[in-house]
């Protein structure tokens, strides 16, 4: 393995997924560098979400490999990948609707806390302290995404944009090393979207790689260091945002 590859946070090698005769993702390869924001863009139905599912473990690839921090994690289930620090959000937001916003984020702290049945029942001092820290952390994260005011409302009562932001906060609670966001800006108003862009940049600058699927080109151009373009399941271009904007293949895919 080259020094270059070892440095990559995530490396996707020839990832392919077939559904019957349809090849949804066709031999896609790319890397995500640490502390960078990589965006996957492409027309609707290009296979972006399927690609995401292959990386996160929700689907297993028909062929190809997924390396996370140099380790082959292709066959691992989602919870195992999450335990390595590969945390995702969903295109169709999947919150815990019955729980309040702050409880949702606290569930996100699962990997960074410990304690099972005995800790729950006996509640020793360390568990009490951890509970308090979890509560505070969750509220701080809500503050960060701008949801402090709705912390105690049930998640089901949040607006669509708020629900998306809550999902980001919940993912951050797991302290990801790679944060995968599936269309985080969909349904956000201009204000929320701008806040999200700042947040994504800040997350990356602080050491967590970000991989996002996004339709909002404004957000992509403002945040991404690297853009991967897919169309009909294939990668058609990759590069810095400025270069991608002028790439004839990309323009053709979007217009044609």
């Amino acid at each position, binding site marked *: 393995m080259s020094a270059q590859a070892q440095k990559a946070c995530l490396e996707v090698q020839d990832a392919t997924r077939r559904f019957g005769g349809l090849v949804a993702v066709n031999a896609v390869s790319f890397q995500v560098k640490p502390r960078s924001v990589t965006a996957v863009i492409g027309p609707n139905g290009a296979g972006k979400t399927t690609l995401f599912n292959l990386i996160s473990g929700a689907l297993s690839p028909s062929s190809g490999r997924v390396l996370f921090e140099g380790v082959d994690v292709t066959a691992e289930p989602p919870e195992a990948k999450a335990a390595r620090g590969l945390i995702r959000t969903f295109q169709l937001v999947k919150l815990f609707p019955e729980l309040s916003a702050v409880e949702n984020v606290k569930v996100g702290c699962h990997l960074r806390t410990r304690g099972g049945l005995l800790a729950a029942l006996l509640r020793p001092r360390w568990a009490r302290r951890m509970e308090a820290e979890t509560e505070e952390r969750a*509220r701080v994260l809500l503050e960060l995404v701008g949801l402090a005011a709705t912390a105690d409302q049930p998640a089901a009562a949040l607006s669509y944009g708020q629900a998306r932001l809550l999902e980001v906060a919940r*993912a951050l609670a797991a302290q990801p090393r790679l944060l995968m966001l599936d269309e985080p800006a969909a349904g956000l108003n201009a204000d929320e979207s701008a806040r999200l862009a700042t947040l994504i940049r800040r*997350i990356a600058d602080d050491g967590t790689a970000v991989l996002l699927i996004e339709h909002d080109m404004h957000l992509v151009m403002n945040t991404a260091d690297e853009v991967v373009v897919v169309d009909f399941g294939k990668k058609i271009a990759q590069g810095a945002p400025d270069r991608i904007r002028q790439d004839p293949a990309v323009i053709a895919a979007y217009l044609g």
Partner: protein
Amino acid sequence: MNSSPSTILPKAVSVPARVSPRRHLAQAAPWLAAAAVVGYALVVGGYPATVVGFALIYAIFVSGLNIFMGLTAQVSFGQSAFAAIGGYGSAILTTQYDWTWAPAMLAGLAAAVAAAFVIGYPTLRLKGHYLSMATLAIGLIAHEIAVQWESVTLGYLGISGVPPIDIAGFELSSDRATLTMLTVCVLATAFAVARIRRSRLGRAFAGLAGSEDAARALGIDVARYKLLSFLLAAGFASFSGSLFVHVVGYVSPEVFSLHMVILSFTMLYVGGIGTVVGPVIGALVVSVLPETFRALRDYQDLAYGAALILLLIFAPRGLAGLFAALDTRRKP
């Protein structure tokens, strides 16, 4: 590169959850109601104490069911199997092998949890009506075994002469002593459920109840926590089964029939699924109400079934839902 997002977070002052006096009242009201009923039975003794005693045993069983169904949003129609293991375990070990109640109860508990582990592993992979039917089948198999394995269970005849529980040489055979002991057991159970609910474990349950995909994406091992929830429910079921045989002094297959399952579901829905106090309130209401209308006693199963259907249609959140209407927040 070990930095985590926590380092980028502004050190904002956390906003504590506000607790209004009205909220306190709303939370306390069902407990006060339950205390009033149990207190009345303690004072009066006799038959009311017996009825309330049964209700409290059921409250423990239903609390276990509530962990699996209310907190974890899974389905089991076969929890009676684990109550049967606990009940028969206690009855057989104390009457035929002269064990004292405590080790017998623990042995029953261990057997029930072990059985739940063996059964749960393949069963909990199923979903929907497959899971429902598989768990129902497990409950019925347990009932059939209790009927057929006559050399051990004495079949339909049942096992009688199970000694009451004694503590430090003092036999809890009077109505009031039994009721006091059961009240302590129910409080301990409710305390355990409340602590589980507000813990990392409870949040993992709530997570997989809300969305299995999201839970897995956050690193929650869904299969493991489902099984753990099932084991807990089986443990409480076994505990209630053991208590039942010691309090009644007798066990037979009918105790753990499909009717027990329907009855416990009625209690769960009357009280309110997913709440700590719900199972207690549900068990008390469903047990006490038919007694106050003596004429209804022949129609008990009918009434339970009909009440359950009506509740499912018109008030799926139960009585605790009514109490919660005074409250703004829905869950922890």
